[in-house]
C-alpha cells in the first residue's frame, strides 16, 4: 500500500501525540483529582468497585448517583488492559486519545462542512492542530483531565456524523455515532460543557432557517430528530437513573443541584467576581488572562513567561480570522458561505458566553441567571471554553482556506508561521499539565503507585468486610487522600481511592460527608481532643477501621489538602483515643490499619443475620421475632431503600459469620453482580415502607412488626416457632438500581434494532 502525503503527516502527528504523555509525565501515572483518573489505568478495579451501582460511596457517605456511564469504556479499556498489561502505556494512550481522535474527526468535519475545499488538506490539517493544541484546550481540559476532556473528540465526531447523515441519508453515520456515543458515554455527563457548545449553535440556528427552504428545514428536523433520539435512547442505561431522582424527589442529585436555591444564589456573585476578562485573549486563541492573575492560577506563569512575550505572534490568528471574513465570499460556494455565516454567528454567541464581561452584555448574562438551570454556567469561563475553541477553530480553518487561496505565493509562509505559533503556544503543555501541586513548592502530581500501598489495599480487600467504612487519617479538608510516589516526593492527591482498590469505602475528609455537619464536627473534635464525641460519630457512621497514612511529604501535609491546625492534633493521642487495636502495618511502616474503639455493624437489630450481596442488595434474616423491633441501617437516609419479604425463609445463605455486634451477626459476603429476579422488584410490593424514617438523616430506620407480617403475608413467608415467634427473611434493596437495568435493556434493544436496520438497509441499497 502506498501512503500518500496526507496519511503520512497524520500518522506522524498521531505518533507524536501518543508520545506526548511520555514527554509530559516521564513514565509516571497522571492520577488524582475529582475523578481520580484511575479509570484509565485501573479500569477493572474501577468497574468492579465504583461504577456498577446507583448507591455510590467512593470516599463519601452513601449517596444516590448514576455512575454507570463509565461502564462501556471501562469494559473496553479492561479488555485492552488485559492485552497490554502495562498501566503506563494504558493510561498514556487514554491521555492521548481525545487529542488523536479530535485531530482526525476535526479534519473529517471540515471535509463535510466545506466539501469543495477538501483538497486543501494542509490548511485543514493546520486548523485541526489549532484546535487540539490550543492553550484553551491545555488549560481547560488537559490540565484537569476530567471526562469532559473527551468532548475534544466527541464534538467534531458527532457533528461530522450528523452532517454526513444530513448530506447522504446513509444510516451508517447514525450507527457509527451511536457506537461512539455508547463507548464514550462518560463524557455526556459533562452536560454543562456540552450545552456550552449546543447553546451558541442553537442560538445561531435561525441563520440557517433564513437561508433554507421549507422542504430543507423539514428534512433537517426529521433527520435531527432521528439522530438525537437514537443517540439519547442509546444512553438510557444511565440517563434513566440520572433523571429519575428528579421525579422521585431525591435531592442528592445533580438535577436538583442546578435548580436548588442555594446553588442559584451563587450565580451572580460568582459571575461578577470572575467576569473580568475581555474578548481579546480568546480571539488570540488564548485563555482569559485577567482571571488567571486575579486568582493566582498556574496559568498566570504561562502568561508571564510565554504568552505576554509572544502576544504579537498570535496576531496571525486575527489576521486569518479577519482575512477569512473579507475573502470567504470569493472562495466558498453558496452552501459553504452559508455554513460559514452560521458558524460566525455561533462564534459571536460563544465569544460572549465565554467572556461575559462585555459592557452592557454582562448584565444580559446576569439576567439569564434567572432561567432555571442556567446557574450551571456560573463558571462560564470553564463551561463554554471547549465549545468556544471548537467553533473558533472551524472559523479559523475556513479563514486559512480563504487566505491561502487569495495569496498563493505566500501560502507556504502563512502556513509555516501559523504552525509555528500553534506549536509555540503548545510548548506550555508540560509545565501546565505536569505542574507543581497547588500550594506546594516542588511536589508534582505524577506517580507510580507503590506496591506497599497496593499490598495494603489487598489486605483490606481480603480481611475487611465491604459493609464497613474506614476513616483515613490525616483527615483532609475535602475528600482527598494522598499516596506518595515510590521513589520521589511526588504524590497522588485526589478522591481517596481506597474503595476502588479494596472495595471498602473510606471517609477521608470533611467533604466525604456530603456537606453534613458531621464532617466539620470530626475536625473540630480532633482539635479539641474530644475523642468521646469522635467515637460517637464514627459509630453512628459505621466507621469501624482507621487507616493511617504516615508517608505524606511535609509540603503536602501543609498544602490546601489539609487543615494545618487539625493536622497538629492527629498524633498518637488521637490514634489511642479512637482505636482499639492495630491490625496491620505495611512492609515499610507507611500505612497502618487499626480497628475502631466502638465497632458497629452496617445493619443492626435483635437476632438479625445479614449478608451483603452487593452495594444495593442485602439478605436479612430475623430469628425469633416476637414483638415490634427496630432495624437500623447505618448509611445516609434514602427513602428508596426497600424491604422485600422472601418466601420460605431459611438461613442457608449464611455459612460463615464474620462479625457479631450486639445481637446482629454479619455473614461472609458473597458478591453477585445481579440476579434476574431483581428485575421484578419494581412490581413487587415492599414491606414496612410506612415505618421507614430517619432521626437525623444518618441512618435508615424501620420498625419490624411480626404481627403485621402474620396479618398481611401468606404463611410461606415466615416460619412460626413454638413460642409463637417467627423467623423471617427479607431482601433489602436499593430500588433506583432498577432504572439502570431497565435502561440497559432499552439501550441494547436500540442497538440491536439499529444493527438490524443497518443490515437490511445496506442490503437494500446494494440490490438497488
Amino acid at each position, binding site marked *: 500500500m502506498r501512503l500518500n502525503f496526507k496519511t503520512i503527516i497524520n500518522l506522524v502527528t498521531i505518533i507524536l501525540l501518543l508520545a506526548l504523555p511520555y514527554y509530559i509525565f516521564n513514565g509516571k501515572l497522571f492520577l488524582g483529582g475529582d475523578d481520580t483518573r484511575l479509570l484509565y489505568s485501573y479500569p477493572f478495579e474501577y468497574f468492579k468497585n465504583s461504577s456498577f451501582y446507583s448507591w455510590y460511596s467512593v470516599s463519601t457517605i452513601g449517596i444516590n448517583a448514576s455512575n454507570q456511564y463509565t461502564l462501556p469504556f471501562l469494559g473496553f479499556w479492561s479488555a485492552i488492559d488485559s492485552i497490554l498489561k502495562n498501566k503506563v502505556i494504558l493510561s498514556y494512550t487514554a491521555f492521548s486519545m481525545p487529542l488523536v481522535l479530535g485531530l482526525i474527526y476535526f479534519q473529517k468535519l471540515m471535509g463535510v462542512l466545506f466539501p469543495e475545499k477538501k483538497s486543501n488538506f494542509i490548511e485543514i490539517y493546520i486548523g485541526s492542530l489549532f484546535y487540539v493544541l490550543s492553550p484553551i484546550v491545555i488549560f481547560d481540559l488537559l490540565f484537569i483531565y476530567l471526562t469532559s476532556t473527551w468532548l475534544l473528540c466527541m464534538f467534531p465526531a458527532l457533528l461530522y456524523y450528523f452532517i454526513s447523515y444530513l448530506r447522504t441519508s446513509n444510516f451508517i453515520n447514525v450507527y457509527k455515532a451511536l457506537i461512539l456515543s455508547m463507548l464514550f458515554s462518560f463524557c455526556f455527563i459533562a452536560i454543562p460543557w456540552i450545552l456550552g457548545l449546543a447553546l451558541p449553535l442553537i442560538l445561531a440556528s435561525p441563520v440557517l432557517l433564513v437561508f433554507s427552504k421549507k422542504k430543507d428545514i423539514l428534512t433537517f428536523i426529521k433527520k435531527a430528530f432521528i439522530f438525537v433520539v437514537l443517540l439519547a435512547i442509546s444512553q438510557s442505561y444511565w440517563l434513566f437513573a440520572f433523571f429519575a431522582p428528579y421525579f422521585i424527589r431525591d435531592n442528592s442529585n445533580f438535577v436538583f443541584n442546578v435548580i436548588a436555591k442555594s446553588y442559584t444564589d451563587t450565580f451572580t456573585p460568582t459571575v461578577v467576581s470572575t467576569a473580568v476578562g475581555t474578548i481579546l485573549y480568546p480571539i488570540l486563541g488564548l485563555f482569559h488572562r485577567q482571571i488567571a492573575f486575579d486568582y493566582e492560577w498556574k496559568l498566570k506563569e504561562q502568561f508571564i513567561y510565554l504568552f505576554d512575550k509572544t*502576544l*504579537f505572534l498570535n496576531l496571525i490568528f486575527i489576521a486569518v480570522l*479577519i482575512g477569512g471574513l473579507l475573502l470567504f*465570499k470569493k472562495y466558498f460556494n453558496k452552501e459553504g458561505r452559508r455554513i460559514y455565516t452560521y458558524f460566525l454567528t455561533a462564534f459571536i454567541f460563544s*465569544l460572549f458566553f465565554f467572556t461575559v464581561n*462585555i*459592557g*452592557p*452584555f454582562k448584565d444580559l448574562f446576569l439576567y439569564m441567571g434567572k432561567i432555571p438551570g442556567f446557574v450551571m454556567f456560573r463558571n462560564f469561563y470553564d463551561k463554554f471554553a471547549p465549545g468556544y475553541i471548537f467553533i473558533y477553530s472551524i472559523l479559523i480553518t475556513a479563514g486559512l482556506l480563504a487566505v491561502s487561496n487569495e495569496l498563493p505565493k505566500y501560502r507556504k509562509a502563512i502556513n509555516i508561521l501559523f504552525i509555528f505559533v500553534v506549536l509555540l503556544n503548545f510548548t506550555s503543555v508540560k509545565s501546565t499539565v505536569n505542574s507543581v501541586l497547588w500550594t506546594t513548592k516542588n511536589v508534582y502530581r505524577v506517580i507510580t503507585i507503590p506496591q506497599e500501598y497496593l499490598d495494603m489495599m489487598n489486605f483490606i480487600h481480603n480481611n475487611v468486610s465491604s459493609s464497613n467504612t474506614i476513616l483515613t487519617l490525616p483527615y483532609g479538608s475535602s475528600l482527598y487522600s494522598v499516596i506518595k510516589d515510590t521513589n520521589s516526593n511526588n504524590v497522588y492527591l485526589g478522591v481517596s481511592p481506597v474503595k476502588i482498590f479494596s472495595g471498602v469505602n473510606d471517609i477521608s475528609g470533611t467533604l466525604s460527608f456530603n456537606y453534613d455537619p458531621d464532617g466539620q464536627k470530626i475536625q473540630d473534635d480532633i482539635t479539641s481532643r474530644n475523642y468521646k464525641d469522635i467515637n460517637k460519630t464514627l459509630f453512628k457512621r459505621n466507621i469501624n477501621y482507621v487507616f493511617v497514612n504516615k508517608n505524606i511529604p511535609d509540603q503536602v501535609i501543609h498544602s490546601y489538602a489539609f487543615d494545618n491546625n487539625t493536622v497538629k492534633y492527629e498524633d498518637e493521642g488521637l490514634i489511642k483515643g479512637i482505636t482499639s487495636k492495630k491490625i496491620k502495618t505495611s512492609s515499610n511502616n507507611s500505612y497502618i490499619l487499626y480497628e475502631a474503639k466502638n465497632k458497629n455493624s452496617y445493619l443492626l437489630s435483635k437476632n438479625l443475620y445479614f449478608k451483603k450481596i452487593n452495594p444495593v442488595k442485602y439478605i436479612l434474616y430475623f430469628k425469633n421475632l416476637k414483638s415490634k423491633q427496630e432495624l437500623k441501617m447505618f448509611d445516609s437516609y434514602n427513602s428508596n431503600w426497600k424491604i422485600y419479604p422472601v418466601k420460605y425463609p431459611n438461613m442457608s445463605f449464611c455459612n460463615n459469620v464474620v462479625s457479631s455486634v450486639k445481637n446482629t451477626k454479619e455473614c461472609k459476603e458473597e458478591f453477585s453482580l445481579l440476579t434476574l429476579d431483581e428485575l421484578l422488584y419494581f412490581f413487587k410490593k415492599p414491606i414496612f415502607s410506612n415505618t421507614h424514617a430517619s432521626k437525623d438523616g444518618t441512618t435508615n430506620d424501620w420498625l419490624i412488626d411480626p404481627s403485621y407480617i402474620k396479618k398481611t403475608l401468606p404463611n410461606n413467608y415466615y416460619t412460626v416457632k413454638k413460642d409463637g415467634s417467627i423467623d423471617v427473611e427479607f431482601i433489602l434493596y436499593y430500588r433506583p438500581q432498577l432504572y439502570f437495568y431497565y435502561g440497559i435493556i432499552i439501550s441494547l434493544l436500540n442497538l440491536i434494532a439499529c444493527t438490524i436496520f443497518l443490515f437490511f438497509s445496506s442490503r437494500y441499497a446494494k440490490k438497488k
Partner: protein
Amino acid sequence: MPKRNKKSYGIIFTIIIPVILLLFWFFASLFFNNKISFSVIQYSESARDIKSYPSGLLLKDKSIIGEFKANDNNLGIINLGFKNFIERGSGGEDVLLFRIKEKGQKDWKYINTYRSGSLDRQLEYPFGFPSIPDSKDKTYVFEIKSLYGTPNNSINLTDGKPTLSTAYQFSKGEILGSKKILVGFLYKKIETSFTNIDFLLRSLIFLAPLAVYVFVYFLSKLKNKSSRSLSIGMAIILIVLDILLLKEYYVGILIVLSILWIINIHKFKIESSVTFLTTGIMIMVWVILTMFGMLDYQGKLNVWIFTLFIVGAAQLIFEEKYSPKSEVNYKNFFKILIKENG
C-alpha cells in the same frame, strides 16, 4: 403637493418631531435614569473638599479624608469617583472603614465597613448611610480608612485624586408636600442633573431616537460623493473619540453610534467586509496597546469590537439572503475615505 401642505410637512419634520424627541430625552432622563432615582438630588463637590489621600495604594491605617458643606437636607450618600479601576489584589480582601460626622462633633454619626472587593472595577462607589434630615449648610467630615491594606490587597488610587459628589434623598411626601416645594425640588433636580456631565452621558440612551432621526434626516439630504466619505469618516471618528475620551461605556452612546454606523451601511451600501476590516484594525491596535501596557482603552475596545462583530454578522446574513449590491467594500474603503475627502 400643494405649497401650503409642503410647508406644513416641513414644519412637522424639521421642528415638531425633533422637539417631541427632545422632550422625550429631557423627561425620560429625569425619570428613568438608572443610576440616580428621581427622588435623589446629586451635587458635584469641589476636588478641594478631599483634604487628604495617599498617592497610590491605600495601605493599612492610611485614609482618605474629606470635608464638605451639605447643599441640602437629607444627605444620604457620598460618592467617591476614581480615575482608574480599583484593582483588588490577590492576598485576600482589605476592609475599608467608612465614617462620617458633623464638623466639630466628637462622635462619628455613622460607621460602617466595606470589603475592598465590592469596589473592584467600579469607577464610582456610593458610600450610603441613613439620611440626615437637617443637613443643609452644615459641614461634614468623612473618612475612609484601610484596616488591613497590604501591598497585595489594598485598593489602588494610582491615577490621582478621587472625585467627590454628595446625594440627598427626598421622600415622596416631602416632594409633594406643597406646590412651592415641588417646584423648588424640580428646579434643583433639573439644574443639578443637566449640569452633570455623567448624567448627560448616561441620558444619551434617551437621545437615541432623536439622534437616529437627525442622522436619517440629514443623510437623506446629502447627495454627492464627498458627503459619503464625510459621513462614514464622522462615524469612525466619533467611535474613536468615544474610545479615547470616555473610559466608562455609556449604553446610549453605544446605541447612537452603532445606529449611525448602520445608517451609513444602509445609505452608502457598505459591505460587511468594511465592518470586519474596521474590527480587525481595532483588534490590531488593541494588541499593540496591550503589548505596551496601555490598558486604559481595553474596556471600550472590548465593547466596540464585539458590537462591530455583531453588526458585521448581521450585515453578512442580510447579504447572503438578499445579495444586495454594494458600493463600498474592503478594497475601495480607504480610497473612498481619503480621495473623496479630497
